């Protein structure tokens, strides 16, 4: 055996806890190796003196403090509210399972992180959550329609204008909503609001009944500006049903000249 190996065995050799075979090897080695023998002798001196260090009696207070602590703990346990006991039980249960060694704690943390990332990916690419998002969007749209309808009935023209502006953002408005817009177009006292409605309705003009409503509205509109806006829109969407109404406007002696001119242009465009 090398000196290093022998030396590592010295403390056990001195305490007599070394197995007999190794103990014999150490004994043989130190009988031949002066350096190791000196080390064993010096350590033996210290080792035996360590044993002579007497045990000390702790002070009397240690015992009384302990029993006071135990009593206090018992009182604390009995007075603990039931709810806390449940939490404690959960804590205790978790503490048993939670590993004590930091390396395992770290492992669990990494595993949870990876699991979280995987779930995150699955949520992004899965179909379930997509449906939820669509549902959420629908709900948002419904909310927007409700707000718009409410704004259109407000006494303030600014509020109504805002309602019209908001309706542009509604992707699939229901019939009730379109009816409210048409109603505003036909009855709103404010020209600006009515003009805004014409502009807003353009994007819904592929609906047949909306187009019909636009034509009917043109028949009743008194404001030249609104008339011009409606004529332009109907010309743009090439609404054949508007031709008759346009002709009536042109023939009407009370119609203002700029409106007549616009109607003629519109008719040309539609034909």
């Amino acid at each position, binding site marked *: 055996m090398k000196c290093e190996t022998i030396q590592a065995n010295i403390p056990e050799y001195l305490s007599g806890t070394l197995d007999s075979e190794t103990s014999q090897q150490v004994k043989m080695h130190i009988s031949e190796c002066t350096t190791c023998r000196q080390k064993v002798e010096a350590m033996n001196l210290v080792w035996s003196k360590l044993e002579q*260090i007497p045990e000390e009696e702790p*002070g009397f207070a240690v015992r009384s403090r302990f029993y006071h602590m135990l009593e206090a703990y018992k009182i604390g346990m009995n007075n603990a509210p039931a709810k806390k006991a449940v939490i404690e039980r959960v804590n205790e249960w978790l503490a048993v399972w939670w590993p004590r060694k930091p390396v395992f704690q770290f492992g669990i943390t990494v595993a949870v992180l990876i699991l979280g990332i995987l779930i995150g990916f699955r949520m992004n690419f899965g179909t379930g959550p997509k449906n939820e998002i669509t549902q959420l969007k629908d709900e948002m749209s419904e909310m927007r329609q409700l707000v718009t309808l409410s704004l259109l009935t407000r006494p303030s023209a600014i509020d109504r204008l805002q309602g019209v502006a908001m309706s542009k953002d509604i992707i699939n408005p229901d019939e009730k909503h379109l009816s409210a817009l048409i109603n505003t177009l036909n009855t709103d006292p404010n020209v600006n609001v009515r003009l805004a409605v014409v502009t807003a309705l353009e994007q819904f003009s592929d609906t047949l009944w909306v187009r019909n409503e636009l034509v009917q509205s043109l028949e009743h509109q008194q404001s030249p500006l609104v008339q011009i806006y409606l004529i332009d829109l109907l010309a743009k969407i090439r609404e054949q049903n508007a031709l008759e109404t346009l002709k009536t406007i042109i023939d009407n002696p009370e119609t203002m000249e700029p409106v007549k001119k616009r109607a003629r242009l519109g008719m040309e465009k539609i034909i």
Partner: protein
Amino acid sequence: MTDNELMLAVRGGDIDKLGQLFETHHKRLYNFFRQHTGNRQASEDLVQEVFLRMLKYRHTYKGDGNFESWMYGITRNARIDYYREHSVEYVDLEETGNLIRDTPGPEESFSQKSDIAVLQRALLKLPEDKRELLVMSRFNNMRYKEIGKILGCTVGAVKVRMYRAMKELTDTFMELTGGGHHEM
């Protein structure tokens, strides 16, 4: 009842059984801290702290291992926390003389008594980890396997560390006694 059975009873809510464990172990624990810290008051506080922690963390006792290993795990943590909280070194070298019996026996010479006092000083001069190892092995008669379990290392590593600790203690002791003994 064995220590293991007593501790399982404590875990189950019969905390009075901790009293029996206290009676069996508190003196040894006190001396463990006494050798380790060299301070009587700190050692008494730490004994109290260990038993309080045994109550607080009784649910972590699984009952499948050695009760002493579990207790020394708690002991070790309590001591480390105590050092951390009391950042100023609390080892009172002046007090170490008190560790020696006040009245020496007829066979105990003055030089023997003084040698032991020097040895205690040497012990307190060691780095914490080495002192801990020596105290566990020499004063608590713990096997390397148990020590390895508490320190989280192999028996082989305990063996090497133990030799180093003994070597440093012997060197320090020789130094303090003015090299009157064997040179290492």
